């Protein structure tokens, strides 16, 4: 287990006041909140910040951590010395829903076990509580949205072992991803979250769909965008050309005199659904290279015979 430098996580000095800790935490929490942030690894960062705040904002935990922390560096291999926490009393809230499943092993080793230790041994009124919901992101390929797919998801659920310690148990699920999903959409698997306590209902598992970038298409909701290169004569004279779609090749008729950048719609060929999306084909007129004499000759012929000024609208 690596030692975590909570001061470094939150970006404050060791002698920071409670107000400084709070301000630094607030700023970082807004920046890395997983619902708001597009920073990479925002979720992991957010948890780490929350954990650091949890320790540093509680005077007792902070004092215990400071006593322990002198002499340790961030990332160093760490195991807590026995009785490191004598003389401190934590007012933390033990198994408080979301929290228990989100703390790091480091935090659990310091503050978790001790709160957990008291739990199963004592004969207290059994609390009945619904288990936590889990949220996970699943990346699929565009083709999966057309055909459906299966994905294997691994979750870590907190459990109390026979010694009353909090341990994490891995739990693997195989999930069918139906076709027709779009970015950001969620699938709910009822009862697949954390098991409930004292006979309470288990939580649910929510999977949020995201897409891997595609080589050819850009994805917007259920619509796709594709750049389609066309030859100058196809655009000028009109033509029927083949267009690849995730569902297979289709013929697209290009009207004569189509300018570059024109958007043509293939209705209903986007991601399936009710209604299905469309594919927008953006025409990009592509010039043949003038690398040999006959090609040069053709361009020169156009120059002399077409009387074409592409900049006439600019007045030059």
């Amino acid at each position, binding site marked *: 287990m690596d030692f975590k430098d909570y001061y470094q996580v939150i970006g404050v000095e060791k002698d920071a006041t409670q107000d400084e800790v709070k301000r630094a935490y*607030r700023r970082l*929490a807004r920046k890395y909140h997983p*619902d*708001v942030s597009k920073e990479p690894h925002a979720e992991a960062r957010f948890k780490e910040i929350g954990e650091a705040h949890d320790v540093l904002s509680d005077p007792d935990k902070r004092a215990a951590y400071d006593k322990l922390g002198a002499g340790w560096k961030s990332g160093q291999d760490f195991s807590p010395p026995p009785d490191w926490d004598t003389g401190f009393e934590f007012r933390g809230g033990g198994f408080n829903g979301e929290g228990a499943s989100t703390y790091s092993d480091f935090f659990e080793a310091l503050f978790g076990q001790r709160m957990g230790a008291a739990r199963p041994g004592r004969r207290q009124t059994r609390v009945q509580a619904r288990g936590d919901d889990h949220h996970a992101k699943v990346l699929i390929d565009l083709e999966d949205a057309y055909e459906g797919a299966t994905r294997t998801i691994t979750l870590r659920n907190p459990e109390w072992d026979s010694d009353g310690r909090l341990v994490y148990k891995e739990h693997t*699920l195989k999930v069918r991803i139906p076709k027709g999903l779009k970015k950001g959409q*969620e699938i709910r*698997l*009822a009862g697949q979250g954390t098991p409930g306590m004292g006979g309470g209902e288990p939580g649910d598992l929510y999977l949020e769909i995201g897409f891997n970038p595609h080589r050819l298409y*850009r994805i917007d909701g259920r619509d796709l965008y594709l750049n389609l290169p066309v030859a100058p004569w196809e655009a000028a004279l009109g033509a029927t050309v083949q267009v690849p779609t995730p569902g297979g090749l289709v013929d697209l008729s290009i009207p004569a005199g189509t300018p570059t950048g024109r958007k043509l719609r293939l209705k209903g060929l986007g991601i399936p659904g009710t209604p299905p999306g469309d594919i927008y084909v953006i025409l990009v007129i592509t010039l043949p290279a003038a690398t040999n004499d006959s090609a040069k000759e053709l361009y020169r012929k156009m120059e002399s015979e077409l009387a074409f000024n592409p900049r006439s609208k600019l007045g030059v």
Partner: protein
Amino acid sequence: MKEDLLTGDILDEHHELSLRELCRVCSLDTMRIVEFVDEGILKPTGRIQANWRFSAVTIQVVQRTVRLQRDLDINLAGVALVLDLMEEIERLRSRVEVLDRS
């Protein structure tokens, strides 16, 4: 251990929930959901509370609202604004992505 292939519920606009179902799924009491509706964060169909129907997409919005309220200590009007702005940013981001690679 043999694993079964699980099929979940797709939370899209084709599935609807009553107020009671929404409260159960999100583990919230009715009061909270009514507050969210009053703030304009949730838009159920049905003019009176007894007839409210929520699109399943609402679940995601409710959970996001709860997290933002709890984690960032924002009041409901603030959350409503954040959600609107996020939606706008998301829309613009998709546009940028489409244009960037043209």
